[in-house]
Structures are given as structure tokens and as C-alpha cells.
């Protein structure tokens, strides 16, 4: 995820102020949380530790803005930067590339339109990175590629303009709760059967129907009034795990059915509720997609 912290070309270009701010602001929607409550002493200690991985002194950059033409910079960005950092500065995809999967690129290009990045990196630091490139990554020196100082300033100005349109998730039109709940007009067995019947129409494969305490109690003594219907759309699962291996906390995909006092209710975790927990915008559309699947199956089963 992102650039390895011990990469010499990273440490040699990252000021202590950048590292401190990165820890404090994090990278909203790009996995790294904000450690805003860490005592300053702890942040300093972390930065000092990171710095111990390099024998070079920490660079220091002025804070002033660099005057450049963002409109010209937009064209240069499209030509030189977008291929890795994304057309809208959204960064490389596959934030969860792990589990010994092959990677397309050795380094995941950071999101430049990230509010945390923009709050941490000064214009001068961004320009220096353009000048130097990043050894051991696909990013080559822009001056070596023939760009002038003025052109670099224009790119910096364009990157800074991302601050007015940072990458952020779609806002929910209604508050999201942790659990989707829907009452069924049918008995328990019929509701379970209806859910099973609805699955194929939503491209979901049935993995199995179990009681909620199955495996926790002796066989034959399970609570028959609490049933779990495990299901999966493997292509979506594969994509989700590629994006973020933490997705496993939502698995298996499942609709639960419980009967109490003659009333039958269906339940499912609302995946959208996890959006802030994952802090990974690349997962958001998957979470919304799963939510829609659950709701449509539950509505069909109770129709």
C-alpha cells in the first residue's frame, strides 16, 4: 500500500513535518487512519524511528505556495502522471494487494487528491519529488524527462488544485445502521425457502443453511429458530479481497432468519456501515452492491 516507508528515495524526500502531518491526518478513504489523538511526543518518536532507517538528514521545505498555472499543469499531469496516479488523482488501484498475489506495479501510486496528502505535503516537497523522481519505483525524474522548472511548477499547481475536489465517497442519502432488518409475513421455514429461491436471480450461490449455534452445541440440539443462510458471489468476493483483505470480517455473505414469539425477521449486516471502518474508498462500491443484493433478496423473500 503506497510507498514503502523505508525506501531511501522516499525518506530522503519526506520532511519530518510531512511525516508528522501524515501520521496526524492519515489518508482519508485510503486505509491509513488519522492518529489525531496521538500525543505529539509519540508522533515525534515514530518519525525519529523512521528517520533511523536513513543515513541522510531530513529535508526541510519552505511552506509557501508555488505559483504555477494549474490549467497548463492539467495537460502535463494527464501526459505524465495520470497513468499511475489516476485521472482524478485517485491513486493506484488494489489497495489490498497482498496474499501473495501478483502485482501489476511494485509500488502502489499514492492518491494525490487525498485531503490527508495535500494537508501534509508542501508544494516544495511535491516539486522536489518531481525533480528527483523515485528510485526503485516507476516514477522517473521529470527534469531528466526534459520538463522545465516552469512546467514542474504548473504540475504542482494542478496537484494542489485537487484540494478543491478531494477524493471522497458518495454520501449516503439516509443514515446507515449496522444491521438490515426486514420482517417476513411467512413462517421461518417458508422464509428460508424463499431466500434460497431468490439467490440465483441475484447471481448468488448458496453455500449452506446452518443454525446460528451449529458447531457450538451437540448435533441435534441446535436452536432451530435461528437460521443462517450463507451465500456468495465469487467474482465479487475475489474483487473485494483483491481490494482489501480485511474484507473477510464481512464473510461469509449471509442472511439470517430468526423467529421470536411467532414473528419471523430477516437480518443482515449492512455492508455500507463498514465504509468508515474500512476507510477504503475502493471498497465502497462493493459494499453498496452487497447491500443492494441483500435488500433485494430480502424484499423478494418477503413479497
Amino acid at each position, binding site marked *: *500500500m503506497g510507498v*514503502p*516507508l*523505508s525506501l531511501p528515495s522516499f525518506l530522503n524526500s519526506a520532511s519530518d513535518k510531512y511525516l508528522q502531518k501524515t*501520521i496526524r491526518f*492519515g489518508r482519508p478513504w485510503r*486505509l*491509513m*487512519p*488519522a*492518529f*489525531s*489523538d*496521538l500525543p505529539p511526543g509519540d508522533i515525534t518518536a*515514530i518519525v525519529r*524511528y*523512521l528517520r533511523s*532507517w536513513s543515513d541522510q538528514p531530513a529535508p526541510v521545505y519552505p511552506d509557501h505556495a508555488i505559483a504555477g498555472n494549474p490549467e497548463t499543469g492539467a495537460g502535463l499531469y494527464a501526459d505524465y502522471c495520470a497513468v499511475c496516479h489516476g485521472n482524478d488523482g485517485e491513486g493506484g488501484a488494489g489497495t489490498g494487494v*497482498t*496474499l*501473495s*498475489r*501478483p502485482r501489476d506495479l*511494485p*509500488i502502489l501510486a499514492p492518491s494525490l487528491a487525498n485531503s490527508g496528502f495535500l494537508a501534509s505535503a508542501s508544494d516544495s516537497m511535491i516539486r522536489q519529488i518531481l525533480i528527483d523522481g523515485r528510485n*526503485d519505483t516507476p516514477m522517473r525524474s521529470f527534469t531528466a524527462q526534459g520538463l522545465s522548472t516552469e512546467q514542474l511548477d504548473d504540475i504542482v499547481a494542478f496537484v494542489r488544485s485537487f484540494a478543491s475536489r478531494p477524493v471522497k465517497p458518495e454520501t449516503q442519502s439516509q443514515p446507515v*445502521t*449496522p*444491521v*438490515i*432488518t426486514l420482517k417476513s409475513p411467512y413462517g421461518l421455514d417458508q422464509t428460508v425457502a424463499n431466500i434460497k429461491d431468490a439467490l440465483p436471480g441475484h447471481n448468488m450461490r448458496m453455500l449452506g443453511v446452518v443454525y*446460528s*449455534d*451449529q*458447531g*457450538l452445541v451437540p448435533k441435534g440440539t441446535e436452536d432451530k429458530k*435461528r437460521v*443462517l443462510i450463507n451465500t456468495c458471489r*465469487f*467474482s465479487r*468476493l*475475489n474483487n473485494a*479481497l483483491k481490494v482489501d*483483505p*480485511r474484507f*473477510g*470480517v464481512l*464473510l*461469509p455473505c*449471509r442472511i*439470517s432468519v*430468526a423467529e421470536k414469539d411467532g414473528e419471523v*425477521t430477516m*437480518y*443482515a*449486516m449492512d455492508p455500507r456501515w463498514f465504509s*468508515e*471502518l*474500512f*476507510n477504503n474508498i475502493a471498497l465502497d462500491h462493493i459494499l453498496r452492491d452487497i447491500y443492494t443484493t441483500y435488500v433485494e433478496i430480502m424484499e423478494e423473500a418477503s413479497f
Partner: protein
Amino acid sequence: MKIPLKAALLILLICSSTTRGHEHNILVERIDLPFTQTLLAVKTTIVELGYQIAKVQRVDKAMNKVDYATDKYRIIHFGQATQNAGLLTKCPALIAWLPLRITLAAEREQTLLITLNPLILEQFCGPEIQFQKWKNDLDLLVNKLN
């Protein structure tokens, strides 16, 4: 490019959700053991802590034909039936979240342990002593692995 262990540990620290101002809601621990050993150790410790393992779920079945490069990803479902039953009576929506689960994912010669913080359940069931007990047991489990 190989990332030194210390760098990886720091990356993990930084990537654990969420901030320290409140409890982490998705717990991610990097265990310095290979996957198979971690799986065995987690299963053993879960039982030692008084829980039952309901099942160990694979996610690679039927995915071997897709570009999944490893089968070292398991989800351990565990719990204690009487604890769960009592809580489900008080908070029926909990059925969507139980039994408890721990995900293990191989990352080269180490293992990522990923799970939800049980205290998150307070957000829709209200505070329960049992949620804190689960969290305490999770901490014990991780400490034992480390």
C-alpha cells in the same frame, strides 16, 4: 522489493483502523509466524479461552480457477453457545454478527489476523459486559501469539 520487517510492522501500526482516540473497530495484527502455525495456535488458544470452534471457513474453494495465488486465507467461526443465546434474546439483531470470527491471511512468512472489535456491538446492542469479555479474550489471544 522486499520490505524490512520493521517497516512492515510500522506500516501495520499505521494501517490499523481506526484512530487511537477511540477503540480500533477493525483489529489487524501482524503475527510473526507462518500461516499454518498461526492457524493452529489461534485454534488452540480459542479453545483454551473457553470457546468452541464452530467451523473454519475457506474462501478459496471454487476460486482456485480465478487468479487467487494462495489458499492461505481462513475464517475461524467460534463462540460460546450459552453466551450467544443470552445476548440474542436481548438483542436479536446480533444474529447478523454471530458467531464471532477471526480471519487469518498469509502474507509471505507472516500472518495477518483480522477481526472486528467486539465492542463495536455496543453501537446497536448497547453496552454488555460480555462484549468487553470478548475483547479482553481477543487481546489475550493476540498477546499469546506475539
